[in-house]
């Protein structure tokens, strides 16, 4: 049980006022020529002190009620389900390039990377009904496309409207920062995920890395990089096996350094944040990614939930009203004039 606190403890200094009824009688007084032979009446004597104590109790209850007593509700640990996912979608020029194997045959349908990732993400959203989605799109500057909310239609529409547009520069760090910004001022009730969908054609300056690293730490978000990958490009998984089970050889490391995408993967690892990368160039890759995300987020999130404080003033007010009712009744039966 928590200790009793008062919202306005200074009002308790008024408590001595509750003794006022013991000074005054509070009942109408009549003079009487002599009381020396008045019959001894036990009930009257009891009532005399009863009325005074009742009045004192009423005052005390009223003052305590005014001081607003409460107990802190304390905190309970709750287990959160589902997760909050902010999709950071790259819509830079390079995302409009074709995805998949270099198939130059005329029958092959041209599918851009962004189109493919849209499809993948929409499917992903369908498979994750319990999650909350938000969308940030970026090329040269990040745009808040859909806020982090339960409004799934909004997020879907935001994804469908995202078209690749070359602007010569990819503001990856600012996009990530904006994505993390979504988590600010929200209670930490679920796993937080930043799902970066990019082909990796971006760099992050060294000072920005520090800022990002801190932001990730503050929001306790995890980063998933869905690497949309064209066949010709260097596969990041050549250098890193996704997830925690990586084994990096010297040779692979050197190769990775030559490749910017690989460098980006490396960069995220250096950020010292929970990080995973998936490459998506097929249905199978998507399934794998969804399963991985499910595994990451199905871990229940424990969080402290502060209970509201328990207010006792209302009970004291009710007590005061009940006592006042009794006092009003006593006032009703009070003798107003000493006559029959």
């Amino acid at each position, binding site marked *: 049980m928590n200790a009793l606190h008062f919202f306005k403890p200074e009002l308790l200094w008024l408590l001595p006022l509750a003794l006022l009824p013991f000074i005054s009688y509070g009942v109408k*007084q*009549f003079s009487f*020529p*002599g*009381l020396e032979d008045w019959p001894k009446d036990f009930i009257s004597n009891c*009532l005399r002190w009863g009325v005074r104590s009742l009045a004192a109790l009423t005052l005390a209850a009223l003052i305590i009620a005014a001081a607003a007593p409460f107990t802190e509700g304390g905190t309970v640990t709750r287990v959160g389900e589902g997760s909050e996912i902010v999709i950071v979608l790259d819509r830079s020029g390079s995302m409009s390039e074709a995805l998949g194997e270099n198939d130059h045959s005329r029958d092959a349908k041209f599918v851009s990377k962004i189109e493919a990732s849209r499809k993948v993400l929409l499917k992903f959203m369908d498979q994750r009904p319990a999650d909350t989605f938000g969308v940030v799109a970026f090329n040269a500057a990040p745009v808040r496309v859909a806020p982090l909310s339960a409004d799934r239609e909004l997020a879907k529409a935001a994804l469908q409207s995202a078209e690749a547009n070359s602007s010569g520069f990819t503001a990856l760090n600012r996009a990530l920062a904006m994505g993390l910004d979504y988590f600010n001022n929200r209670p930490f009730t679920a796993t937080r995920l930043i799902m970066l969908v990019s082909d990796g054609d971006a760099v992050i300056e060294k000072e920005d890395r520090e800022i990002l690293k801190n932001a990730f730490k503050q929001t306790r978000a995890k980063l998933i990089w869905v690497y949309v990958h064209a066949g010709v490009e260097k596969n990041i998984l050549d250098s890193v096996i996704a997830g925690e089970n990586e084994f990096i050889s010297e040779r692979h490391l050197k190769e990775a350094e030559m490749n910017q995408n690989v460098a980006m993967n490396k960069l995220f690892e250096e950020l010292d944040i929970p990080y995973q990368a998936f490459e998506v160039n097929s249905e199978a890759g998507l399934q794998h990614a969804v399963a991985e995300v499910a595994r990451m987020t199905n871990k229940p999130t424990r969080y402290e939930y502060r209970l509201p404080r328990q207010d006792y003033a209302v009970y004291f007010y009710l007590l005061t009203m009940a006592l006042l009712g009794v006092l009003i009744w006593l006032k009703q039966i009070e*003798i107003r004039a000493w006559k029959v």
Partner: protein
Amino acid sequence: MAQQPLIHYHVRWRSSGHQPGASHGLVAGIGDQLRSVVMLRDNPDPRRLDLRTSLRDPFENIWVHDFNLNSALKVIVLVDTSASMGYVGKVNRLHVAQEVASQLALSAYRSGDAFGLYAAGETINKQCMLPPKANRGAWLWVNHHFSKIKPQGQHADGLFEAVPYLPQKRCLVFLVSDFRWSAGKLKSLLKKLSHHDVVPVMLQDPAEVDELPKSGIAILRDVETGAGQFVWMRASLREQIADIRAQHVKIVEEASRQYGNKPFLVRGAFSSALLTKYFMERSA
């Protein structure tokens, strides 16, 4: 002051005063009671000739009747002015006392009697002393002085101080009080006044006897001691109080009887006709 009939007080003893009045006296004078038969030379009033005795006398002396003087009484009012006399219930107790005193003053003057008044609380009130004299304006004096009296004091022992101011010869003394005195006080005062004809006039207020509130709560404050009493009025308590007040009247009656007196009970307002009736009953 409402017009009330005069009080016809009547006493069975003879006053020894030389002032002609309405009641039988002890000294010789003009009266309606034969005192003795004396010789004309001793009482040279031939109108009172006693023919029968004069004819029977072998020495042929002339005898005349001698009568007792119809002499005046001295009416003294002793008023208790302790705090309880200031009680205002259904009537103002001090106003009742004033009414008694002024009616007696008026009646005494009309009967040719002397009227005197002494008021006392814890001590005798020297501002309110009227030595017994035949006084036409005595009732005005009473009204004037009673308006200045503030009843105070927890007892009326000052009445004992008033006793030496009273005439040495027997007179009619009205003792006006509520007799809420401690036990034995009334007896000792009556003992001191035993050579007078004392009429204890006991004032009661219906509001303290039988016209009490039927139910409810209140605080009663003793006007003499200032003590408070929380009361919850109900039927059983009313009965107890009525019994106690009746007991109080009995105690006063018992004390008075030991000195040959009978109290006159005034419940509420004073009625002079009732006092006349009291004297008629007493003399019968």
